[in-house]
Structures are given as structure tokens and as C-alpha cells.
């Protein structure tokens, strides 16, 4: 299997470990990713605050290039990219004026977009294309005794909820259970991590991240599993700052793909685990968990 792939800026910067681990586990599952040639920034949430039309044009270039390359699907691992590309897809389907503007702009680059590219998330591919059975077969070191709080964040399930429920998503739960981990039931699966507010308005943003860490800890989780480079950054890089404000919460955050890699027996370094600021260690005595 081979999937066209849109890495996005974060996976080349702060979220490098996400790309490293995702490529490694997909390769292990016999799936290769083909990077979209000369992709550009999706626009994320910030661009939409400045100029909606330009944000749409920015995103459309990627989809148009994907279509021209003959791709019918595009894998977007970053939550913001996933949402923004999906949002453009919805907008041009629903609002003819947006479609016209986008086409006009694309024409400047001799591009054209018919709307045929389906934007997909790795979780969607893993569950609905590769399948849990194929994943289970690859598990050589089941994550037995590891209590994981699955954290989906916002933008992969909202507002479009294309492959999972907007309030109670379960795809990552199923995946983690397949890896042998103990999935912690907790109600903050889709609560906001603070996004960029952690940097701009720390007293508001960091508090949201703190709430997630604290509740996961209260539920006895050893680790949070995330799908988004920004969530990971907030929960991992700002961890010291959060502890500084609210006291110790010894709980690391890793990408779900890193946990998959560990279960597949891949080397932690290959999965980018050495890039975590809060080091993740497998609990040696799984039975001695937090209350």
C-alpha cells in the first residue's frame, strides 16, 4: 500500500517525532508514504483569522497539486492540517463563491481543482484500511500494564466528525487496546489543550493543558497518547512551566504512533522518543499504578 502524504510544517519542526514514528510504524505495516511534492503551509487556524480567502487559496494549492499528481487521497497527520484541508473541501462543495475565488487563484499557477481528493487521518487509515487485525499481528511487545489516556484533542473530530464521533471518539481507544495497553476511560478526550494560547496568553492556555494532565493522572494514567503536534508540544514542552505553576504532575505525553512502534518492537530512538522533554519510561511494576 502506498499513500500520498502531506506532512505539514509542524512535523518538520517541533513535531518531528510524530513523523519519525508514523513513517516507521507504517513502513512496518507495509505502507509507504509518498510525500506531496512542494507542499505549502495549510494556513492553519492563524491564517483564517487574518484573511479567509487567502487561507482557502493557500490550502487549495496542496489539494490541487495532489489532484494533478493523480492522488485520490491525501494523508494529513497533523490535526490542524487535517481540519483546514477538510474545511476547504467542504467550503468549495457548499459555497460556489469560494470555489470561484479558489479556481481563479489556482488558474494563476496553471492549476485547477475538481474536488476529488479525500483528506484522511492516520487513525482513519489504520482502523478502516489496514485494520486492527493486521496491527495485532505485528504486536511483539504488548503494552501490558501500561495505562494510556487517549487524547484526541479538537480538530480531528470537530466540526466534521468524518471518521469518528465528535463527542465520544473511539478509534484511538480501539487501537491502543489492540496494542495491549489498558485504555483509561476519561471524559476529556476531546477537550481543548489550549492551542496557541499557551504561548500567547499562558494563564488561560496553560491552564487548559494542566487540566488534561491532572485529570489523566487522577485516573491513574501512566501516559497520554496524542495525535497532534501542537497538543504534544503543549503537554510536553510546557510541562515544566505547568508544574511550576500548579505543582508536580509526573505524566509524559507521546504520540499514539510512538506507542505503536514500541509494541511492534521498534527502537525508541527510531520512534523519536528521545525528543520528548518529559521522558517516557515503561512502568516497571505495572501493578503498582497510581490510585
Amino acid at each position, binding site marked *: 500500500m502506498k499513500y500520498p502524504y502531506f506532512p505539514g*510544517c*509542524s512535523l*518538520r*519542526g*517541533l*513535531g*518531528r*517525532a510524530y513523523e519519525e514514528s508514523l513513517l516507521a510504524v507504517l513502513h512496518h505495516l507495509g505502507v509507504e508514504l509518498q510525500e506531496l511534492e*512542494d507542499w*505549502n*503551509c495549510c494556513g*492553519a*487556524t*492563524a*491564517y*483564517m*483569522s*487574518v*484573511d*479567509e*480567502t*487567502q487561507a482557502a*487559496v*493557500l490550502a487549495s*494549492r496542496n489539494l490541487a497539486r495532489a489532484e494533478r499528481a493523480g492522488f485520490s487521497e491525501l494523508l494529513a497527520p497533523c490535526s490542524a492540517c487535517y481540519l483546514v484541508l477538510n474545511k476547504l473541501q467542504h467550503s468549495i462543495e*457548499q*459555497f460556489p463563491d469560494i470555489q470561484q*475565488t479558489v479556481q*481563479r*487563484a*489556482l*488558474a*494563476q*499557477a496553471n492549476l485547477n481543482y475538481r474536488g476529488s481528493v479525500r483528506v484522511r487521518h492516520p487513525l482513519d487509515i489504520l482502523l478502516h484500511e489496514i485494520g486492527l487485525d493486521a496491527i495485532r499481528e505485528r504486536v511483539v511487545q504488548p503494552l501490558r500494564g501500561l495505562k494510556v489516556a487517549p487524547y484526541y*484533542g*479538537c*480538530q480531528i473530530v*470537530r*466540526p466534521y*466528525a468524518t471518521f469518528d464521533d465528535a*463527542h465520544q471518539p473511539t478509534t484511538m481507544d480501539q487501537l491502543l487496546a489492540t496494542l495491549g495497553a489498558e485504555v483509561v476511560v476519561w471524559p476529556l478526550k*476531546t*477537550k*481543548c489543550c*489550549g*492551542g*496557541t*494560547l499557551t*504561548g*500567547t*496568553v*499562558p494563564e*488561560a492556555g496553560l491552564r487548559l493543558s494542566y487540566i488534561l494532565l491532572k485529570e489523566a493522572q487522577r485516573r491513574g494514567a501512566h501516559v497520554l497518547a496524542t495525535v497532534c503536534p501542537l497538543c504534544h508540544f503543549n503537554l510536553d*514542552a*510546557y510541562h*515544566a512551566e505547568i508544574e511550576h505553576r500548579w505543582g508536580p504532575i509526573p505524566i509524559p505525553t507521546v504520540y499514539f504512533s510512538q506507542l505503536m512502534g514500541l509494541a511492534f518492537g521498534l527502537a525508541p530512538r527510531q520512534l523519536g522518543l*528521545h*525528543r*520528548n*522533554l518529559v521522558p517516557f519510561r515503561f512502568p516497571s511494576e505495572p501493578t503498582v499504578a497510581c490510585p
Partner: protein
Amino acid sequence: MDYTPRQIMALVRADFKNEVLQSRTIWLCASCYACTVDCPREIRITDILYALKQRAIQEGVYPRHFPIPVLAREFAAMARRHGRITEAYLVLKLFTRTNWRALLRSWRIGLALIRTGRFRLRPERIQRLDELKAMLAATASHSSQSSFPPAKVT
């Protein structure tokens, strides 16, 4: 947050334009869309806040020293200029523009990120930058008249 989101909607309807566009509330939205999927009237609150933010920037009335609009503008400028975002570089710019002290306070994180290879200052850029610029230029005449999105998800 100077107004609640509910107050923002009411102020929009009552035509209190200055109060809305100068408010900090619209900038505090982190775009998590929780309100949009839960609104019983199916009002696309996140999208409406986007439209308000754009209007505030167009009219130049956003709160000047509030970091969020500064970040949004720097982000857009970098995306326009390079086609991609170099996060570390963006954060540095934000802090130099808004809050030197925050930059000083964050040195520990910065060092740790450098140590783990996540902090890259060499700007990422796309190859066909002229192509992207031509596309964005084609929207210039339209970008000034950004309209409110329809209130309902269809």
C-alpha cells in the same frame, strides 16, 4: 475575556461594532469547535469569530499589544513569504514583538528543544514561491470584502 461569546453574538446583532472588534474575546478562541458542534441553533460560532477577527485586522482596530493577533499576522506573513512555517522562528518573532520577558523566561524550554533537535531556525521554504505569490495576488482584490459565513451548517 472581556465579553462572553454569548455577549459577542448579542453585541453583533445589536450593532455594537467597536465593542466587538476591539474585544479580546474574539481573539481568545482557540478554534477547537466545541461550541460549533454543540450549538442547538447550529450557529457556526468558530467561523463567525474568524470573520470578526478578519474584520478587526482589516479595520486596524484589534488590540495592539495583545499577542494573539500579532501571532496571527506574523504567521500569515511568514506563510506568504516562505510558503511554510518555521515554528521556532515564528515564536521568536512573536516574543520579540510582544513580550521580551516571556522570551527570557522561556530559555529553558528553548535549550531543551535545541537539545532534542526540535528547534530549527533555518527557514523552511517551498520551491515554487512565485506560483504561490501569484495565487495570493489574485485574491487581493477580494480579500478586503470578506463576508460573514452563513450562520448554519448545511
